[in-house]
């Protein structure tokens, strides 16, 4: 730790016409606004609005293409996050930047180790780390290996790390995504305390109630541009949401269809448990119905479906169109599930959804290769299928012979969707189908999902974006800590109601 740096007293930030381009793709189009010291700002915007890129420029992880960033009136061009840290600007990443095999104290002082001569001063570092951990209300031994912490604890260690570095401007990107309500309350107290000490905080969150509760002022970005700013008490949540989306929210979602009452559900799950993740979940979805799954991170939604697919040990009864799946523990593996007519799109597009180094064609046909191999693969038939999918799903690409990695996030997601629909399933599970996708592609995906439902497919949408679930689904199932606590009719559902069920502050579960 460098101690006596005079400029650390306060940090005033001014963005002036900041432009950022990745190659020919421009993501920030001249953003200008200023942040006064000692205030808490809520930075709002849809995925792809450019919030994260702007904050990475502020904290030295990205350089700007043109425009000026001024800190305390001085133009700055950081070449690394260390430069920004020297001025007291620290970004807490959404994805953790912790070395798993090092201890908590070693992580907190990583790159800023305290030394006695040539040797590390472990005692001093552990003492200071303990103080920082106490400040964030985390009662763990600083010598604990980070690997042994749960996700919420890692988040708190990240914050402690920033505090130990005497941050004067702290950027928090979705800090409560993994926290319980109790931990969130403690974080808010900490934010209030930091603000009293003159620390500027930029708070990025999709949870508008939290933004309302904790910030002094909101700044809204959309499509790489600054849109509006206002003192928090003066804007309603509905106004915030409309500013983010840039149109009346109603336009983003297709009109809701009434579900045709079919004689039997497409998928019926009874008393399904995935040990450690989901407990005794029962639900059903009918053909033509869109069923949402809401819940906090870690509520067990993804794990429930991974259990159903045989990717995790599980038990329970599953019926597909009235036919029970044998051996009472879901399917054996995703192949088994696909054969019975259920496919799953993972939330982790790069890690589990698409082969990004493969061509579009190979990605599209992977789940239905039998159709193209009799017994030799027919690349021409595959190409024809790709041309059709590109048209059907609105995948924008310059050429059909590119790798999936060269598509934009939204188009990759459309390709992934096309891929899981290739085997012509009866039920499709879409886990975070619009994560990391721009607003235009989002709208495309919503309309596509509705079209699928109209064609008689039963669709299950797992999402952390509550507005999306309310706007798109017929019914929303809510999970909390591994339990399916409520299934709600989405017609008159509000965000508050959903959050209340997800966090356990609602009175009694209601069934729809």
């Amino acid at each position, binding site marked *: 730790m460098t101690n006596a740096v005079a400029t650390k007293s306060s940090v005033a930030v001014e963005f002036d016409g900041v432009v950022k381009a990745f190659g*020919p793709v421009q993501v920030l189009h001249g953003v200008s606004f200023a942040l006064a010291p000692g205030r808490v700002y809520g930075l709002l915007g849809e995925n792809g609005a450019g919030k994260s890129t702007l904050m990475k420029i502020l904290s030295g992880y990205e350089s700007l293409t043109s425009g000026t960033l001024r800190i305390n009136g001085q133009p700055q061009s950081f070449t690394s996050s260390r430069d920004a840290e020297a001025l007291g600007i620290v970004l807490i990443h959404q994805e953790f930047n912790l070395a798993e095999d090092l201890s908590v104290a070693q992580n907190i002082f990583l790159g800023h180790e305290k030394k006695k001569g040539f040797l590390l001063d472990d005692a001093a570092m552990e003492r200071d780390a303990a103080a920082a951990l106490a400040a964030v209300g985390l009662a763990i031994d600083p010598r604990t290996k980070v690997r042994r912490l749960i996700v919420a604890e890692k988040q708190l260690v990240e914050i402690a790390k920033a505090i130990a570095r005497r941050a004067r401007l702290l950027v928090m990107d979705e800090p409560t995504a993994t926290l319980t309500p109790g931990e969130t309350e403690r974080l808010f107290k900490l934010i209030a305390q930091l603000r009293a000490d003159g620390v500027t905080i930029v708070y990025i969150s999709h949870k508008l109630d939290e933004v309302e509760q904790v910030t002094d002022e909101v700044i809204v970005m959309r499509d790489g541009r600054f849109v509006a700013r206002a003192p928090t008490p003066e804007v309603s949540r509905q106004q915030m949401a409309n500013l983010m989306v840039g149109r009346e929210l109603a336009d983003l979602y297709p009109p809701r269809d009434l579900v045709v009452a079919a004689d039997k559900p497409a998928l019926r799950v009874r008393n399904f448990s995935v040990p450690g993740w989901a407990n005794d979940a029962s639900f059903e979805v009918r053909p033509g119905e869109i069923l949402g799954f809401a819940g906090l991170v870690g509520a067990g939604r993804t794990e429930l479906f991974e259990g159903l697919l045989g990717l995790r040990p599980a038990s329970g009864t599953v019926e597909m169109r009235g036919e029970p799946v044998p051996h009472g523990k879901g399917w054996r593996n995703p192949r088994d599930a696909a054969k019975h007519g259920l496919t799953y799109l993972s939330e982790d597009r790069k890690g589990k959804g698409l082969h990004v180094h493969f061509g579009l064609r190979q990605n599209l046909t992977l789940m239905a290769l*039998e159709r193209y191999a009799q017994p030799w693969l027919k690349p021409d038939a595959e190409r024809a299928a790709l*041309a059709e999918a590109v048209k059907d799903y609105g995948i924008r690409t310059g050429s059909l012979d590119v790798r999936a990695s060269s598509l934009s996030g939204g188009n990759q997601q459309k390709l992934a969707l096309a891929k899981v629909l290739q085997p012509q399933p009866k039920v499709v599970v879409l886990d975070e189908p619009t994560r990391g996708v721009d607003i235009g592609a989002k709208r495309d995906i919503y309309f596509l999902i509705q079209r699928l439902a109209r064609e008689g497919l039963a669709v299950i949408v797992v999402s952390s974006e509550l507005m999306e679930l309310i706007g798109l689904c017929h019914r929303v199932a809510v999970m909390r800590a591994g339990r399916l606590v409520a299934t709600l009719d989405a017609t008159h559902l509000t965000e508050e109601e959903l959050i209340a069920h997800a966090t356990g502050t609602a009175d009694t579960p209601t069934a729809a």
Partner: protein
Amino acid sequence: MPPEPQTPPPQPEAAIAAAAAHRSEAKPRWTERLHGLGPVIGLVLLCIAGTLLNGDFATVDNAMNVLTRTAFIGIIAVGMCFVIISGGIDLSVGSMAALIAGSVIMFINWAGPASGSPLMAVMMGAVLAVALGALFGLAHGLLITKGRIEPFIVTLGTLGIFRAYLTYFADGGALTLDNELSDLYAPVYYASLAGIPVPVWVFVIVAVIGGVILNRTAYGRYVQAIGSNEQVARYAAVDVDRVKILTYVLLGVCVGIATLLYVPRLGSASPTTGLLWELEAIAAVIVGGTALKGGAGSITGTVVGAILLSVISNILNLTSIISVYLNAAVQGFVIIVVAFLQRGRR
């Protein structure tokens, strides 16, 4: 060009992204083609050099000699190619070949007199070689997938086990085919069809079948998908375990075929049989342009890689510029240079 999507309104950003995608794709394509041609260019240059250095190099006899010697490693390398593309590795193939050779010799020596039909015994021995290879491959595959042990560890273990058992069966010496049976078996290595030695024919057939399986069947696509990203493949309803087990079985079968061709060459198996074959087979695959971390690769490249490596040793044998004892060193340099040229391909 794909048809314009009609439903959504055109978005400038998406259009830019698409244009960018188009442009950024032009370059990798060109370099990829170069990567594919690299081994071929290397082989051609080597052959020109060989011709200039020694008049005997560019003769049909020498070419057949080189190809026959390549056949064993080449056949194994075709199988190895599948294993490596799927993200695995097999270090045991040399030891496996030795143990199979020893077992086949013992079997033929026993079955020849016992069955009264030496020809039948030799044929049964050939079948046994392939069956043993498949069995050993199956064991590897099961231990790696169901037992969830790293392929490096499993095959490092069997590398020792196979060779130790051969040494034990041979009592530290050599297992040798009986003379009469050996004469009967000899044509498998020494005979020619249409002027081309039998092992070369077999090598060509194995390579063609391998190429068709890898590029034109669903199984081949799955192998590539698993090596490229196993999780994505698993989520995409690919039966990952079965596909991986089969790659090891395929490799085992290839080792069995290579061994049944190799046995009549010397008519014996000793603790030094097949020594370091695993390294040569892996080297052939890597020199041929397949990435060791898997995902993509080619049978053609592997065949060229195998030939390239044996041409190097052939040239060293024919000329006296570099000592024959440095053969392995030259091959080692070639492998490192190829790996250097392939850096950052992804």
